[in-house]
């Protein structure tokens, strides 16, 4: 008889789950979780497109999408952490005596396991994503090698110089034809600098005596800025110049105007 009533009282798995979510702390944490996660997703989707410069190359696109989508996929994790914290904050105890003791939960095996495996999976997504991007950029570099134009970039305290060997010109403005892959061979005449054509989303340090390489393909016509991203002494802040991505016709006209020749 006693057994029979116990069987009747035992909740089904479905009831246990709904019962769990009806608990005040769980219900509130769930709502907070949804709110925080949504906030982070919105932040990711809105903040970076709004604040980052206009995307003018595939590399810049890839930087921006990593920032957006990593925010979005980390949103649920941030959501859990902040939901539990906010829930605890709402249950705060004030006054000069300690609160009553809470439940003596020392650990919870399944939760620790799920959390660890979850963060492992999260790390794997980030790693695989990054490796694929790096790989696709390397593959693109190989494919574009023949059609690319080469620019010899020299950083000196506190001036950028761009030499276009095939065109036979040397300038302090960085002008590029749209849709043509470009390879930057970068070196320094003195201390370390870092070559940063901002809107193209690539960057590489300039070192004395060695040449470093970066590449990109501009995808859009418009003005670009070149900055130095490595502290290089007194006028580091002013070591910047302008340039533009232009149509091939405009680029060729500019090359000729500089006294160079088009191929």
């Amino acid at each position: 008889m006693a057994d029979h009533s116990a069987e009747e009282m035992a909740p089904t798995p479905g009831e246990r789950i709904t019962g769990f979510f009806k608990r005040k702390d769980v219900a509130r944490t769930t709502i907070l979780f949804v709110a925080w996660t949504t906030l982070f997703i919105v932040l990711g989707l809105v903040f970076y497109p709004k604040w980052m410069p206009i995307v003018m190359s595939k590399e810049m696109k890839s930087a921006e999408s990593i920032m957006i989508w990593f925010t979005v996929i980390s949103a649920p994790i941030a959501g859990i952490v902040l939901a539990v914290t906010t829930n605890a904050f709402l249950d705060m105890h004030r006054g000069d005596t300690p609160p009553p003791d809470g439940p003596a939960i020392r650990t919870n095996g399944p939760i620790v396991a799920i959390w660890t495996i979850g963060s492992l999976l999260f790390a794997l997504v980030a790693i695989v994503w990054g490796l694929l991007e790096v790989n696709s950029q390397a593959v693109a570099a190989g494919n574009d090698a023949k059609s690319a134009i080469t620019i010899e970039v020299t950083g000196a305290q506190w001036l950028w110089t761009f030499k276009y060997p095939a065109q036979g010109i040397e300038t302090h403005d960085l002008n590029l034809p749209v849709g043509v892959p470009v390879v930057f061979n970068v070196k320094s005449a003195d201390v370390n600098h870092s070559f940063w054509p901002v809107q193209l989303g690539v960057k590489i340090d300039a070192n004395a005596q060695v040449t470093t390489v970066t590449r990109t393909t501009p995808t859009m016509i418009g003005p670009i800025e070149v900055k130095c991203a490595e502290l290089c002494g007194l006028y580091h802040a002013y070591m910047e110049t302008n340039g533009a991505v232009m149509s091939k016709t405009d680029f060729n006209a500019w090359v000729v105007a500089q006294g160079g020749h088009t191929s």
Partner: protein
Amino acid sequence: MSILDKPKVSSRSIPNPKKSLITRLHMGTGTVVGIIFAALTYYGLKSIYVTYTDKVADPMTTHNNNIILLGAMFAWSVGFLVGIGAFIGPWRWLIGKDLTDEEILYMAGDGQGKKRYFKYCTDHKVVGLQYLVGVMTLLGVGGMMAMMIRTNLARPGAHFVTPTVYNSLVGLHGITMIIAMIIVATGPFGNYIMPIMIGAYDMAFPRLNALSWWVLFTAIPVLCSAWFLGGIPTGWTAYAPLSIQAGPGMNAFLATIIIFAVSTAVAGMNVTTTVVAMRTKGMKWNRVPIFVIGSTISVALAIPAFPTFMAAMVMTSLDRTFNTGFFDANMGGSGWLYSNLFWIMGHPEVYVILIPGVAILMEMAPVFVRKPLFSYNAAILGFAGIAGLSILVWAHHMYMAGWSPALNGPFMVTTEMISIPTGLLFLVLIGTLWRGKPWMKLPMLSIMAFIWDFLIGGVTGIYLSDVPADSYLHGSMFVTAHFHFTLMGAALTGAIGGLAYWYPKMTGRMLNERAGYISFWLVQIGFNVIFFGMFMVGAEGQPRRVVDYAALYKNSNMVSTVGAYSVGIGMIILLWAVIHSWTKGVVAPMNPWGAKTLEWTVPYPVPLTNFDELPIITSDPYGYGKGK
């Protein structure tokens, strides 16, 4: 076994070894002897290494000038230590006349009141308070430089300082704060609280403990001298070859790091030995308070990491003095060698800073939620995992250096792996908060602030660890904002929480609560405002360390500056609270928070040997809660 290991010394008479030299030495004699050593070295070297004032740009004059300045700086440090009596013990041991018991007790500061804070005092509690004052001084100086940086950046045009001064401000703010953050938790609390927490009479090597503090102390005037020698143009990273090209102020930076590295090596060894060897009976590894575990992992991580920094500084010094060309590409050296040595220290170093801060917060969480620490094992694995991985990630600072593009992939893998142990740290804290009723005192507020700040720091760190995103973000203000969210958000927030928590034990009085709350909100809100502004300008494309910027960035920069003033005011209020409460605060009971760790079982003032009889431990200190 020293006399301090014998119990019941509190009933002895006050030691008074009248004839001993140690009674006459203090900070003043140290300073005098230090200055004499420095002056003798300066003029001695000047007579050997010729310099011409009319040929300051001449390489020989430059090199010789560097030799003279570096020599004088190291001589100051050694002279100060001689003058304060740091070498009396080893010397007496060498000549076979070891210190008497009375002298040893005198050196421990027994019965000397405030005087002992200015002497070579071996009592870990004195050293802890010396570190506390030292940290607050460094934070004050570093903070003032931060305010000057933000004032200059309030609007475009560099109206406030010149580029030379600005570059120096950036570099000296950086290194001052890095030093302050490295010692902010393990210095004051690691020295004062930790030995009591593990049930020890003192540290394992009390004289080395005093040595670590006073060596560090000698580095402070050396660092300040950089201002009088023309500043440093390199930022705290001191990249070569810019550091080799730099003027005489650079010597101050190099000497500071070398001296500081000695101090941390000594302190790291001492803390590690103490925790390994001097835990009281019954304190097995799975009963050690988490703050002790965190501090030990942090200082143990510093032991292998800092020597490479020291080596890099020694090599830079040699390049600047004897023209050795380690980092000069024109002489067959390599700037990349410097960057590697620097970051092999540099990345473990950020976790040396972070781990003790988080460990303090974990120590306090159970006390203020009245629940056991959630998954103590996950906490340990989190710290150990971070420490282990941190030595394999250094070149993520060099993705864009062009040093070895093929290594970018592997370093991206190790770097992103760090999010796994870091995730465990969050789990421990939110697990402890779950179903608790947190007691909203300052330590609890710090825990919650940390969770928010470090989450932002962590998520933005994930983009930076990814090579294609870093190729845009590297070297921008975005990076500056990211690492302030992690370092300031974790280490400083943790340390301020720890200060509020342990203040009653260290001073016998409660920290003024109202001032503490006002300061907390001004600092936390201001901090978030500053660095959200900086995330914006970084995303927009403003490089780091620039004295001036384009009009495009002006609004976000103004936002950051407003936030900076809020933090500045908040920190001044905190400083006032610390100073005021020290003498005028409410007298604290022995255990104001009802905590279960051993430091709350001793009275204030804490007796010289902490315990008359060492306690015996039968469980970990987290036995809160009901049920189960």
